[in-house]
Structures are given as structure tokens and as C-alpha cells.
């Protein structure tokens, strides 16, 4: 899936590069919160692990084998920020040392394979873990769904970028179908191996699984006279921390869906027109005199522009909706959290 040079035009490459750089900057800050001064050695070793695991081929169906992308696996094991950093470093090393993936396509590769897979996988994972009852069994299931969703979403992201600035003359809907179909399968394999790996780590060292941090039982101190006090655990990941990746992931999925859906909505008349054009061409062939070439060219161009405008309008509409809704949600959430924080402070005082 490593995109080489020359696959996307310059505008998309630069845009994706800027997006990737911004994402990495955010993740550098976030990873320091997840790992403190351990960031460099821990993330480095996890990156080496991901590099190794990507070489681990596993059988998907008869005769074909796939390999792990590892974005969701890393996010569940070490946290989303560190995961993005690790996968991005793996991609950088592969690009510069192994010539795997073009240097001008690094932005696209990091955006799709590091940021989109990790963030989407983690968002889905958190959503399921938080809505499911608190149990250890929910973790692998959530990891399965997160990983299984993240891969097709990344493939759709590829399709979207290809639609904006791909250099190959393939119908976007056929790219979407081919990429989507293949990557739903790959996603299932990825999900399966992610879930199994997470559950095997969970069985041996549950404390290492970042996504299972909320499962730690509270420490209860019982004194000789029978009184018991709950000790607030260490720096458990507060819901506030997981909110931002969730929001970003949600926005990303929505924008992707909007792009794809609006594209499909506008591509059905295109299909009709194509059939009509075919028939018209037949008529022309019989009539000999009417050359419809440029006309059909113009109509295709017109449809493409329309499609683009519909897509842009869809994405913009979704953006505005998400911004407005997000603002309201954020205000409400903030008020709630203030209440929560005050309550927690009181609790701390009691336990102290």
C-alpha cells in the first residue's frame, strides 16, 4: 500500500504533506503526555515492533496472505498519539532507507497509513469500549471492530485523494469499489489479528495495554476496624483525554463519508449519461456525418466539474455542521466536566 512517486499530482502531495506534518506536531505533544521522557526509547522500540510485525505475513484466504498495517494495534497497545508517531517513523524509515514509498508521497503515506488508521481505529475502539459494559472481554472485540473499520476507511481516504489528484485515468467509482472490496477483506484479517494479539498481551501483561487502562480495579484499603476507603488510582486516562481523538476521528469519517456519498449521489446520472452517450455514439456511427467526439468530451467535463462541486459542497456542509454541533457539544461537555472535576476534588479530600 506504499504509494510511490508520481502517483499523485503535486498539489495533493504537498497538501497531504502539510496535513501529515501538522498531525505529527500534534502527536509529538500528545505522546509526551502519554510517555513523558520515556517517549523516545519506548516509541522507538514500539516502532521497531511495528516494523517487524508488518513483515509477519498471515494467511487471509486460500493462497493469499496479507500483512498487518498495525495502526490500530499500536493505538490500542500504546495510545493513539504514540501510535501515529511510531507508524509515521516506520514509514519515514521505509521511505528513506528501504526506498519503499516515494519521498514526495510521504505525506500521503503518513496521512493514510499512520494518521487515518490509528485515529479511526482508536476512535471506534474507544466508542465501543465506553458504550460496552466494563469488562476485559470487550477490549479485543472493540479492537477487532476498530481495526476492521480503520483499513477500509484508509482505503476510502486513498480513493478520495485519488479523486482529487490522481494521475491515472481510472473511473473513481471503480477505484472505490476495488479498493473498498479488497480492503474490507484485508480489514477483517487486520481486525482478527489485532484482536488476537491484543487479547494475548491482555492475558500476560494487562497493564501494558493502553486501551485497557480504564479497567483497573480501584484500590480499596480496609483497616482493622472494618472501615474501607477507596484510593483514587494513579493518572487514569480521564475521558477528557480521549475526547479529542474521538472528535477528530469522527470528523474525518464524516468528511470521508460525505465525499463518497455525495460522489455516489452525483455519479448515478453520470452512469445514465454514459449509457445515453454510448447509444448516441451508435447513432452517429450509422449516420456517418455527426462527429460527437468533442461534445461528449464537454459533457464529461461538465459532469466532472459538477461532481467536484457537489463533493466540495458536501464536505463544506458537513464541516459547518460538525463545527456548529461540535461547538455546542464542547460547551455542554465542558460544563459537565467542571461539575465532575469539582466532585472528584471533593472525593480526593475525603479519601485524603
Amino acid at each position, binding site marked *: 500500500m506504499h504509494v*510511490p512517486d508520481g502517483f499523485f499530482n503535486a498539489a495533493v502531495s504537498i497538501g497531504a504533506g502539510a496535513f501529515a506534518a501538522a498531525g505529527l506536531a500534534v502527536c509529538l505533544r500528545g505522546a509526551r503526555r502519554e510517555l513523558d521522557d520515556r517517549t523516545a526509547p519506548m516509541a522507538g522500540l514500539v516502532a521497531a515492533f511495528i516494523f517487524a510485525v508488518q513483515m509477519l505475513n*498471515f494467511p487471509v484466504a486460500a493462497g493469499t496472505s496479507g500483512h498487518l498495517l498495525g495502526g490500530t494495534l499500536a493505538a490500542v497497545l500504546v495510545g493513539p498519539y504514540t501510535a501515529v508517531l511510531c507508524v509515521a517513523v516506520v514509514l519515514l524509515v521505509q521511505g*528513506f532507507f528501504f526506498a519503499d514509498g*516515494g519521498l514526495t508521497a510521504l505525506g500521503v503515506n503518513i496521512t493514510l497509513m499512520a494518521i487515518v488508521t490509528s485515529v479511526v481505529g482508536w476512535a471506534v475502539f474507544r466508542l465501543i469500549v465506553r458504550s460496552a459494559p466494563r469488562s476485559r472481554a470487550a477490549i479485543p472485540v472493540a479492537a477487532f471492530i476498530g481495526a476492521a473499520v480503520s483499513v477500509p476507511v484508509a482505503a476510502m481516504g486513498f480513493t478520495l485523494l485519488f479523486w482529487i489528484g490522481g494521475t491515472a485515468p481510472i473511473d473513481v467509482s471503480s477505484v472505490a469499489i476495488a479498493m473498498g472490496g479488497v480492503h474490507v477483506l484485508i480489514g477483517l484479517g487486520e481486525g482478527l489479528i489485532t484482536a488476537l494479539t491484543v487479547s494475548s498481551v491482555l492475558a500476560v501483561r494487562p497493564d501494558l495495554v493502553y486501551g485497557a487502562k480504564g479497567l483497573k480495579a480501584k484500590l480499596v484499603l480496609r483497616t482493622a476496624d472494618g472501615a474501607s476507603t477507596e484510593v483514587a488510582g494513579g493518572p487514569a486516562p480521564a475521558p477528557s483525554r480521549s475526547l479529542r481523538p474521538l472528535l477528530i476521528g469522527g470528523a474525518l469519517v464524516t468528511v470521508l463519508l460525505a465525499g463518497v456519498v455525495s460522489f455516489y449521489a452525483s455519479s448515478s446520472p453520470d452512469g445514465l449519461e454514459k449509457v445515453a452517450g454510448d447509444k448516441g455514439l451508435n447513432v452517429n456511427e450509422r449516420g456517418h456525418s455527426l462527429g460527437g467526439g468533442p461534445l461528449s468530451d464537454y459533457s464529461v467535463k461538465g459532469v466532472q466539474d459538477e461532481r467536484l462541486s457537489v463533493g466540495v459542497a458536501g464536505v463544506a456542509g458537513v464541516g459547518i455542521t460538525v463545527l456548529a454541533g461540535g461547538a455546542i457539544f464542547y460547551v455542554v461537555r465542558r460544563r459537565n466536566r467542571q461539575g465532575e472535576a469539582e466532585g472528584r476534588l471533593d472525593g480526593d479530600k475525603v479519601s485524603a
Partner: protein
Amino acid sequence: MGAGHTHQLYRPGDTVIHRLPPQCKLPAVAAFAVVVVATPREAFWAFGVYALLLAAVAAVARVPARFLLRRMVIEVPFVIFAVALPIIGLGERVEVLGLSLSSAGLWSAWNILAKATLGVVASILLAATTEPRTMLLGAQRLRLPQTLVQIAMFMLRYMDVILDEMRRMRVAREARGFVARDVRHLPVIAKSAGALFIRSYERGERVHLAMLSRGYTGSMPVIDNLRASARSWATASLLPMAALATAVLSWSLT
């Protein structure tokens, strides 16, 4: 593993290109890739000039063609994709050797093949003439975020260790008669991956503690002083400059 302390991707040597400071080579190769991508695909001769430029670099660096070709295998999946393009592409069709091919598909197949191959060869030459460690030092001198460079350093340093652990686990699996044939064998592989993760993570913790005990405060001291003179910058910029001149010529011609 028997190759001493040098990495398998690196070809030790003592040529002009080997001696160039990495902070000059990195931007040079990146700029070359950008120029190649920005060249219009109709300018066949420009790509020929780029290939000649790279061949000259390889000759000066004494990187044999066989080494380059062997490393270019990494490109194969996209070559297959590029070959498929003229068959599945849209637009007007042309007859080539009795096959109906899309001319736009042929163009873009050529586009991807040429640009991707040039990019791959440039990256291979960079990796072959620059020690991985010094490449990261060069990245550090180019003001890449410290943390990112450090993560990459630790990754490179321990990559072979981790890969070796994985290889040992594979040998152990296969010594017990395990062959991954279908989906039912996934749990075994997943357990290996889980074990590998625990080993990597615990090794990371040990490495961190060992570094703390040696006075690590979050940043690595710079031991090698990689100064780049104006002359080495000029030498390194020869490749992208020549490419840029070619590209400008091709833009004005088409």
C-alpha cells in the same frame, strides 16, 4: 548478520558521495524527487537525462548496477499496477500488438513507472552511500523535531534485535512443525506478535532505565560534529540543479 557493524542497506566506501555530509544529501535527494515528479510526462528525453544523472551518481559512488537492481524489487507491486493501467484505463483506445489499450492509461502507466523508478533509485543511492546513523544525525542538523529523530534512532538501533527475536520465534514455531495455512492458524501468529510486543516494550523500559542511569535527560548529546562546508553544499546541489535545469527546459519545450 555476519556483515560486521554496517547495515545491509549501506555499501561502505570512500568516494565523494560517501564523504558528503548527510544534511546536504537528504535535501538534495528530496529536491530531485520533487523535480522529477513535477516534470511533464510528455518529455521523454527529460527522464532519460534524469536516469543518466542517477547513473553518473551511481558510477561516482561505485554502487554496482546489480546491487541497485536487487534493491529495486521493492517496486514490483506498483509495476504490476502500472501494467494493469492501460488495460483498465478509460478514454480512447489504441491498438497495440492486437490489444486494445487506453492511451490515457498508457500515458499514466509510463508516468508512474518512470517517476517511481527514478525516485526509488535515488532513495537507494542515498541509503547505499549514507550510514543510517549519520543520516539521522543529518536530519537532526536539518532541524527535524528532536523527538522524531530520536524515535527513528532507537528504531534503527533495535530493529535488527527485534527482527532477530521474531526470526527466532519463527524458527521455534517451524521446528515444531507449524505452517500457517489458513485463518485457523492466526491465533498462533497473533500470540507470537503479542509476545514480540511484550518483549519490545519491556526492552524499551530496560533501555530507558539504562539510559537514565547514564544521565539521559531527554535529549541526546551530539558527539559527531557534522559541519557542512559551502563546497559540500555546492557538490550536493549538483544533482537537483542539473535536474531542475532539465525540468525547466522540458517545461519551456512542451
